[in-house]
């Protein structure tokens, strides 16, 4: 999955994306970072053809997207998107029926639809909610149901807009672990947009940083967060651990071989430092 020189102008004239180019690594978790209004959501909606770019192109498996009805249908089988607010995505009061929707649209035999729905519910850990009405679910459960509704299509790319927004600490870590698990088990390419900087070094393999519709940085979380000035210039911040380690290194005379952004990295760095001193 790749976008090249992408431009997107909203009907009200706002230029949301400006000559943006980036590639999604197959089978990895990629984060798209940026402050509110940087263009993250617009970008995500371009990946499965909901936003048709005003300029440039989106490529899937090396081929430019085909925006015909048939082409889009084909694309959406492979590229699934989970929106931030599950109440905007779940259309049926029956969790089971809602999840089956995507699979039914693939015109699969009923047997296969049932198999996939059951599997998707099992994978997202909501099998016990089968007979519950959607409106009785908690926010986190709705989120999982929305993910299951995309998984039934057995996509190759799973896109999630702010997947951790509104979840409590346990909800965040459970959801991110779920995504990690899906990514590994199904060899999915996962793309998330997020404000939650601290989860990026923990759960993401690669990160793109966008600002004002442009790509300003890319690399592993490690690499991206080793440019703190740049990160702050565009109103983001380092992970808190990274920030602490930066100050210890810059101001307090600690010496670390490389930046550390997670607890385990910081431990290693500090133990290392302790042992050499």
């Amino acid at each position, binding site marked *: 999955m790749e976008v090249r020189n992408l431009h997107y102008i909203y009907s009200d004239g706002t230029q949301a994306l400006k000559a943006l180019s980036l590639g999604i690594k197959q089978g990895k978790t990629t984060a798209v970072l940026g402050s509110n209004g940087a263009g993250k959501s617009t970008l995500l*909606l371009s990946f*499965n053809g*909901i936003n048709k770019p005003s300029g440039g192109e989106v490529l899937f498996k090396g081929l430019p997207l085909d925006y015909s009805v048939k082409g889009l*249908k084909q694309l*959406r*089988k492979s590229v*699934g*998107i989970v*929106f931030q607010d599950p*109440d*905007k*995505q*779940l*259309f*049926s*009061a*029956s969790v*089971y*029926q*809602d999840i*089956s*929707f*995507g*699979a*039914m*649209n*693939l015109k699969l035999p*009923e047997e296969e*639809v*049932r198999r996939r*729905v059951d599997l998707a519910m099992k994978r997202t850990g909501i099998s016990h909610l089968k*007979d*519950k*009405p*959607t*409106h*009785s679910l908690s926010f986190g459960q709705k989120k999982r149901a929305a993910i299951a*509704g*995309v998984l039934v*299509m057995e996509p190759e790319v799973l896109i999630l807009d702010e997947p951790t927004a509104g979840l409590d600490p346990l909800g965040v870590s459970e959801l991110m672990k779920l995504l990690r698990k899906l990514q590994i088990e199904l060899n999915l390419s996962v793309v998330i947009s997020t404000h939650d900087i601290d989860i990026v070094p923990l759960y993401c393999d690669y990160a793109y940083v966008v600002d004002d519709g442009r790509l300003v940085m890319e690399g592993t979380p490690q690499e991206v967060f080793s440019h703190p000035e740049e990160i702050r210039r565009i109103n983001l911040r380092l992970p808190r651990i990274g920030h602490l380690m930066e100050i210890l290194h810059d101001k307090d005379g600690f010496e670390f071989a490389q930046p550390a952004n997670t607890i385990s990295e910081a431990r290693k760095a500090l133990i290392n430092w302790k042992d050499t001193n």
Partner: protein
Amino acid sequence: MIYIDKYAYLSKLKQTNPLQKLVLAVSVLGVCLWADSVAVSILTLLIMGWYTVCKGGTPVGIFIRLMLVPLSFLVIGVLTIAVNVSGDKDVFVFSVYAFGMYIGVSQSGILSAANLFFKALGAVSCLYYLSLSTPMVDLLAVLRKLKVPRLMVELMGLIYRFIFVFLEMADTMFTAQNSRLGYAGLSSGYRSLAALASSLFIRSYQRADELYIALEARGYDGELSVIHEQAETHWTEYIPIVLINLFLIAVALFSKQLTGGLL
């Protein structure tokens, strides 16, 4: 706010074939209306109450509380029918004189009012049996099976789903306004309610767009096709329903004969 919906999902009868429940509720409802007899009405109330409370497990307190919901309509309606105006005092068994006329109730008025009162309660208990044992989702599946057009069922399904989304939204908005004293006076109350309704309308309008986009992303092609649970039934399950109806019909005929068609 919507208790009935909540109890429907909790009912022990939830797994019973919804068509069977619909047939029971509607057929007894029909017999109750046709019979027009106090005995049948009370029996209907007892049978449906037993099904709902004993077989369905709906708390009896909830059932009674719900039976009181239509009571204000019932009392007003029945009194309006029973109370008449006439210049002749003799048509009434009890009357008061006011504004140069007699306002009162006649014997047949009392009888038909009592009849109507119980008939309506009996009928309501049929409605409650259905709605307290059958979640809307299952009811819609039955409608689909009964060849109600697909578009109609889809529309109903969407409306049902989003009623809860908007109710929650309206509730939060109302609370937010209320905590800023939006309902402290009559005129501010009107302004607040209008503001609430209009923002709710605008949100719902936007929600149509957002939902359409989300559905398209999942391959929507103009048909909200979903998989339905197949409820297996055997014709023998309809035997009790037939027996109940036959019993009620027999009671109706018998009591008509006994009271000369009065009750």
